């Protein structure tokens, strides 16, 4: 443990409270600014050169070492980084220099974020010492007391024991946090595989959550359609397609690694030139670079578009009736399951024979989606004629109040065109990729004895009124099997849904490598109001490397280590045909008093009396070796730990992925895990649940608060129609994934802030009518909050829609500092960082109880 | 207006004023060559000595936009290609020759022919300085707002306008000082002779021979004007009024032509053109227009009718014109720099 730092670079006595951090920024800049400065600094540090070499062997102190490391954030990719280390300091971040440009063995070039990691590791916001909220101050007032590790862990353990005695283990909650999900010993997601989960599992368990903020709605939609999670064909398989159609799929911004889906989709397009249509409210980079054509669509109306497309296909006989008859349930009356009422098939819905009595004509959809009816007809014919057609969806369409249905509708389009399970086709889900069979003995060795599970988005409700929450009113579920982090709606012997309830509210929130306490959940101002009531949640602990927004609202802050300060194993992600994995080596000593989360949990386990169970008798390094050893048991061709550590990245070409090919080949022998074994366009279970589900219990029932058996279009609160007709908030606000951050990670890196400004995208027409010019400061506001940021007046977002890149670090300013516009809610501060979650709602989607992030209406005025 | 443009605004305007002043003096001397030499020299030499400090100030300010002054001597290395090198060479040469000429004038050293030759060389160097200054901007083909005939025209009109007005202003100040001195002499005649021929052995302070020489020269300069001197002054003023108002009108006429040209240009040119629209631009036009009117009508007429003993109002008016013109040119030059928009990215 490093306890001494040179006063001129890192004054440890200044560590802690934020103003001193700011003051040290210039000194840090000097420390990382130039190699000359570094040599001086490092010499004074007396740090050893560290780690195994990525390219050359470690030599004299002045010779740089090249150490394999990785970027471990939640971007859906996984990049190796070669850190150039001189005298114990990272001086350069270099890309992968192995592999080729050929898919299957591709070089995994880190994106702009990974390449800026030096300024994330040496960031003025780095947490330095454990901190405790000063007694007598409120959460978020940012009054901190620097304390020792012993004091911090003693007090946290004591409080945990008290909570356990008062409420039991169900009162403990691990909050969603994906900042280091691409690691093994430092893993922050899935929550049940994190070090703190292992610790709680040795101590009686905790309340787990299902799904995640990326995919809540689609995750809950899957079981009622395909029976469970199914990907679409991998992007390299698009070479076999006649046409590629992407609904809100944006690999060039949401899978940015130069070895991941960005490269796979671009190289495939480069070589095979398959025509690509992008359906998205925003002219994304994918639309601009990969796409041949862009179809702008109003947010939240994908199910309406699909209905009209199918209306045209059915009327013109272009759909694949044979596929629907053989593999699906409920498209037509004759494939409806037993007990389904008459005219409840999708076909009846299209023809207007269902309860709404409206035919889903292109004209009907044009009004909703904003796409001209002729364009819809054209699109239907083109999609139907392309055999096969690769239809995929990103996760934007489903992150809505009606997102479960949008997700199912896009699945349905792939089914009705007969593209499922064939090369060049797809399931209408998101693209898949190959992977290595990584074992995770440390992460999965001890399971959670608690069998209840809530939605990832319900934790604030569970803090506020957990003891009143149950299946019908709040989506509290059972686990699909003991110890499995997956939900199922409990059912009785007849298969009817039954109710399971929470007994106690959440009393402790553990947030590790995540920013979901405030910033990444939704309704920042509303969240803070709940969290500031200490009679509700009694203990919030944040373990991170940066002083994040969430850390501001903690009771205790524990400074963790970055990937550069640890050795770890990083399974590859989303590289099309290539399966790979990275073994990293510690490049530098932990900064300040930072400690790896494993060590923190060991010391907590000691205090809770479960150290032996927690460590399993192994050191951190031994767990890493055990991980590779177990992985090699599944695939002996993989390198051993030491070999892998030396080579950094190991890769294997496994070819394209075609999910559901076996089902397609023989549906009887390979049934889906649905009640019917088939694809369920009409879901009996949803029908049954719709009769039990209660809305309006904890918050007002709003339009769209309903379950429906079919993947039909449901108009919701703050949906396109309500927004269009609103005088007060006539603009739909969505929050696209941003090139300059991964969610909120890297959000405080100066190089990235310089490269990618946080701006509110607003269409030229909407800007003109408000007197806004490109680069102007604007307020975006609704009743939940107000943000102030720079306007990007652009043709690249459709009229009526504003897109604010999600993940900026909420920075509330009192009205005395920044006066909100007259029309805005005067009770809220102005967030000058432009965090889109200052505007979003905590009202959950109907089925998933998920975050409806892109169902938000607001107005914009010049600042 | 950008703060970092300030050194360049001051540098170009002040050096152009210096060049204009020097040349104006030369022209006056040329036109007055049939007159009594002493009269002419008495009228114009004080002005000459004001040019030096102004030029030194201008050159000093120009150093502010050099960000590493320790490397400053490198700036002349590229004289065969860079107009910036040439500008500096001309600037230094103009300063050196001008200073040399002033020294000779002051001490009456050197032959008249030598002094005239040096004066002509200095004037040519001054024109070279203004020309190379204009070329510094004109030669940037990547800046449409600068790569235009308007830039040399504007730089030379600045030179002329401020040059003649500086001469006029300095002349009138000198005339006022001399008038005061004359009034004082009248009140206390016993002092008068000693002023004209100050004995060298009357040092008011230490400083040795040179200081004594300088002090006696100052007394000489400040000696009361003669009638002939005043006549010459008045005639020169009339000329200044004509030349100055023509220069000011030229400035006003150039703008619409220049902006019309920019308006026809590419996106960068259009962006530049937009700079010439705000308060600063209108203020610049009003000040310059006012200068033209004051010079053309009031100064010209008053120069004809004013008596030397009652020249205070005329002096104030000339100085006001100088002030208006200087502020107008500073604003105009600031706009010149603000208009910098380059093609490309």
């Amino acid at each position, binding site marked *: 443990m490093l306890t001494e730092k040179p006063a001129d670079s890192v004054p440890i006595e200044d560590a802690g409270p934020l103003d001193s951090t700011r003051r040290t920024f210039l000194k840090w800049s000097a420390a990382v600014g130039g190699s000359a400065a570094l040599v001086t600094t490092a010499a004074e540090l007396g740090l050893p050169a560290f780690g195994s070499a990525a390219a050359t062997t470690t030599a004299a102190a002045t010779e740089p070492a090249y150490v394999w490391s990785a970027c471990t954030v939640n971007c859906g990719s996984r990049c190796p980084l070669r850190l150039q280390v001189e005298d114990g300091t990272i001086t350069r971040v270099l890309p992968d220099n192995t592999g080729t440009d050929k898919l299957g063995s591709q070089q995994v070039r880190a994106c702009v974020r990974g390449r800026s990691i030096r300024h994330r590791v040496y960031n003025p916001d780095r947490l330095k010492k454990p901190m405790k909220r000063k007694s007598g101050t409120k959460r978020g007032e940012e009054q901190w007391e620097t304390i020792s590790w012993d004091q911090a862990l003693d007090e946290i353990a004591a409080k945990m024991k008290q909570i356990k005695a008062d409420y039991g283990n169900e009162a403990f909650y691990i909050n969603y946090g994906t900042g280091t999900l691409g690691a093994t010993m430092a893993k922050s997601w899935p929550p049940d595989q994190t070090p703190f989960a292992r610790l709680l599992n040795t101590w009686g368990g905790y309340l787990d959550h299902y799904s995640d903020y990326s995919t809540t709605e689609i995750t809950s939609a899957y079981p009622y359609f395909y029976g469970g999670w199914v990907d679409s064909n991998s992007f390299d398989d698009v070479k076999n397609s006649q046409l590629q159609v992407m609904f809100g799929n944006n690999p060039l911004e949401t899978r940015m690694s130069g070895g991941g889906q960005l490269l796979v989709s671009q190289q495939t397009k480069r070589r095979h030139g398959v025509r690509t249509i992008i359906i998205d409210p925003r002219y994304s980079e994918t639309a601009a670079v990969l796409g041949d054509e862009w179809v702008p669509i109003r947010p939240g109306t994908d199910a309406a578009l699909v209905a009209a497309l199918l209306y045209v296909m059915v009327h013109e006989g272009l759909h694949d009736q044979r596929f629907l008859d053989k593999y699906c349930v409920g498209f037509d009356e004759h494939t409806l399951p037993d007990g389904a009422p008459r005219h409840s098939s999708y076909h009846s819905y299209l023809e207007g024979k269902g309860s709404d009595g409206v035919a889903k004509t292109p004209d009907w959809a044009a009004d909703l989606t904003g796409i001209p009816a002729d364009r819809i007809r054209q699109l239907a014919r083109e999609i139907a004629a392309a055999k096969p057609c690769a239809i995929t969806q990103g996760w934007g369409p489903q992150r809505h109040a009606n997102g479960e249905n949008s997700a199912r509708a896009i699945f349905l389009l792939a089914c009705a065109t007969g593209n499922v399970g064939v090369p060049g086709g797809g399931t209408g889900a998101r693209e898949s990729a190959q992977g290595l069979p990584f074992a995770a003995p440390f992460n999965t060795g001890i399971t959670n004895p608690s069998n209840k599970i809530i939605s990832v988005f319900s934790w604030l409700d569970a803090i506020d009124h957990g003891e009143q929450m149950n299946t019908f009113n709040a989506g509290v579920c059972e686990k699909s099997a003991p110890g499995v982090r997956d939900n199922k709606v409990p059912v009785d012997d007849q298969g009817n849904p039954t109710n399971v309830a929470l007994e106690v509210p959440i009393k402790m929130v553990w947030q590790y490598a995540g920013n979901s306490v405030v910033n990444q959940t939704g309704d920042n101002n509303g969240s803070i109001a709940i969290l500031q009531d200490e009679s509700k949640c009694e203990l919030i602990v944040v373990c991170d490397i940066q002083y994040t927004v969430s850390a501001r609202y903690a009771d205790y802050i524990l400074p963790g280590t970055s990937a550069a300060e640890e050795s770890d194993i990083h399974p590859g992600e989303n590289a099309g045909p290539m399966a790979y994995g990275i073994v990293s080596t510690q490049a530098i000593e932990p900064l300040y008093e930072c400690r790896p989360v494993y060590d923190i949990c060991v010391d907590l386990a000691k205090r809770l009396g479960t150290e032996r169970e927690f460590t399993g008798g192994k050191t951190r390094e031994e767990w890493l070796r055990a991980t590779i050893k177990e992985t090699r048991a599944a695939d002996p061709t993989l390198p051993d730990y030491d070999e892998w550590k030396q080579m950094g990245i190991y890769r294997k070409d496994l070819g394209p992925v075609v999910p559901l090919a076996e089902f397609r080949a023989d549906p009887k022998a390979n049934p889906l895990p649905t009640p019917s074994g088939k694809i369920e366009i009409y879901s009996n279970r949803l029908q049954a649940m719709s009769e039990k589900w209660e809305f309006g219990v904890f918050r007002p029932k709003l339009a769209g608060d309903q379950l429906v058996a079919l993947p039909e279009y449901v108009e919701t609160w703050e949906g396109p129609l309500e927004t269009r007709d609103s005088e007060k908030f006539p603009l739909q606000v969505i929050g696209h994934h941003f090139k300059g951050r991964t969610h909120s990670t890297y959000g405080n890196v100066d190089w990235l802030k310089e490269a990618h400004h946080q701006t509110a995208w607003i269409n030229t027409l909407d800007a003109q009518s408000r007197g806004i010019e490109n680069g102007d400061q604007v307020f975006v506001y609704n009743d939940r909050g107000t943000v102030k940021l720079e306007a990007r007046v652009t043709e690249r977002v459709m009229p009526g829609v504003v897109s604010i890149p999600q993940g900026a670090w909420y920075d509330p300013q009192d009205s005395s500092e920044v006066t909100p516009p007259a029309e805005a809610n005067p009770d809220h501060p102005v967030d000058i960082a432009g965090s889109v979650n200052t505007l979003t709602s905590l009202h959950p989607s109907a089925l998933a109880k998920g975050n409806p992030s892109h169902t938000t209406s607001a107005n914009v005025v010049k600042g | 207006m950008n703060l970092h443009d300030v050194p360049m605004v001051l540098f170009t305007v002040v050096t152009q004023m210096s060049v204009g002043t020097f040349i104006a003096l030369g022209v006056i001397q040329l036109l007055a060559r049939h007159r009594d030499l002493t009269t002419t020299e008495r009228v114009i030499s004080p002005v000459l000595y004001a040019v030096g400090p102004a030029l030194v100030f201008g050159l000093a300010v120009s150093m502010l936009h050099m*960000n590493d002054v320790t490397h400053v001597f490198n700036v002349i290395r590229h004289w065969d290609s860079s107009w910036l090198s040439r500008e500096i060479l001309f600037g230094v040469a103009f300063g050196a020759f001008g200073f040399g000429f002033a020294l000779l004038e002051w001490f009456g050293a050197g032959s008249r022919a030598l002094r005239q030759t040096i004066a002509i060389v200095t004037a040519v160097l001054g024109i070279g300085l203004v020309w190379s200054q204009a070329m510094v901007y004109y*030669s940037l083909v*990547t800046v449409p707002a600068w790569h235009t005939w308007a830039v040399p025209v504007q730089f030379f009109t600045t030179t002329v306008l401020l040059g003649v007005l500086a001469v006029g202003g300095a002349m009138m100040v000198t005339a006022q000082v001399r008038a005061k001195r004359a009034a004082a002499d009248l009140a206390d005649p016993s002092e008068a002779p000693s002023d004209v021929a100050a004995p060298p052995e009357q040092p008011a302070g230490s400083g040795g021979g040179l200081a004594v020489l300088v002090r006696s020269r100052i007394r000489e300069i400040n000696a009361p004007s003669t009638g002939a001197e005043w006549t010459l002054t008045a005639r020169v003023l009339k000329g200044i009024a004509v030349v100055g108002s023509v220069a000011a009108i030229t400035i006003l006429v150039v703008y619409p032509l220049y902006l019309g040209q920019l308006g026809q240009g590419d996106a960068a040119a259009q962006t530049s053109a937009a700079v010439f629209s705000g308060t600063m631009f209108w203020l610049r036009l009003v000040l310059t227009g006012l200068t033209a009117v004051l010079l053309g009508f009031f100064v010209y007429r008053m120069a004809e009718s004013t008596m030397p003993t009652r020249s205070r109002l005329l002096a104030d008016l000339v100085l006001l014109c100088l002030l208006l013109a200087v502020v107008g040119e500073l604003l105009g030059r600031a706009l010149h720099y603000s208009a910098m928009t380059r093609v490309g990215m």
Partner: protein
Amino acid sequence: MPTQKSHETPAVGLTESDADYGFFFDQSQCTGCKACQVACIDKHDLPLGVMWRRVAEYSGGSWSQSGNTVMPNVFTYYTSMACNHCEDPICMKVCPTTAMSQRPDGTVYVENDKCVGCRYCEWACPYSAPQFNAETGHMTKCDLCFDYRSEGLEPACVAACPSRALDWGPIDELRAEHGDEDGIAPLPDPSITKPHLVIEPHRDAQQWDHATGHIANPEEI
């Protein structure tokens, strides 16, 4: 497609005299991610505000509305730009100190000992290649990673590009392979400096003299 040059490649042939090195930019693949820009900043320890490589977004077009439906006619493409190590480097021409110099291999660099920091080259260069470093008081710019090339490595930006949209090499070879397009808006008339640059244009690319769009991110470049 850039060839793979590993960290161990011996130093051969990457700083050859008269090679007249330049960049190839595949605009059709650029996503505006700016990995090149940040890799350059990391490589050269550039302070904030100094960007030897920058990426401009060029956008334009219009929307037509009919009732509640809309139809776009819009375009966007990116231009990643460092120094083009031009045949007629205007920066060298205007530099009063001769600090702006050219290596035998055709690449343009700043001789630090001479530069006076007058920023005249910054005014002149239509690609914003010379960038002023306030910390040193000197101009700085891309030298095509001379030190890396001396070690047989590729320039940092080229090795960084996730989309493989950047390459470099002797300009004759680049032109033979990719053609000679170098005048796509927002770039200027290439005849001004004759850049050692070859662009594979985006499908919506507009010629410099027939451009209808605008730089959408002026504050970022």
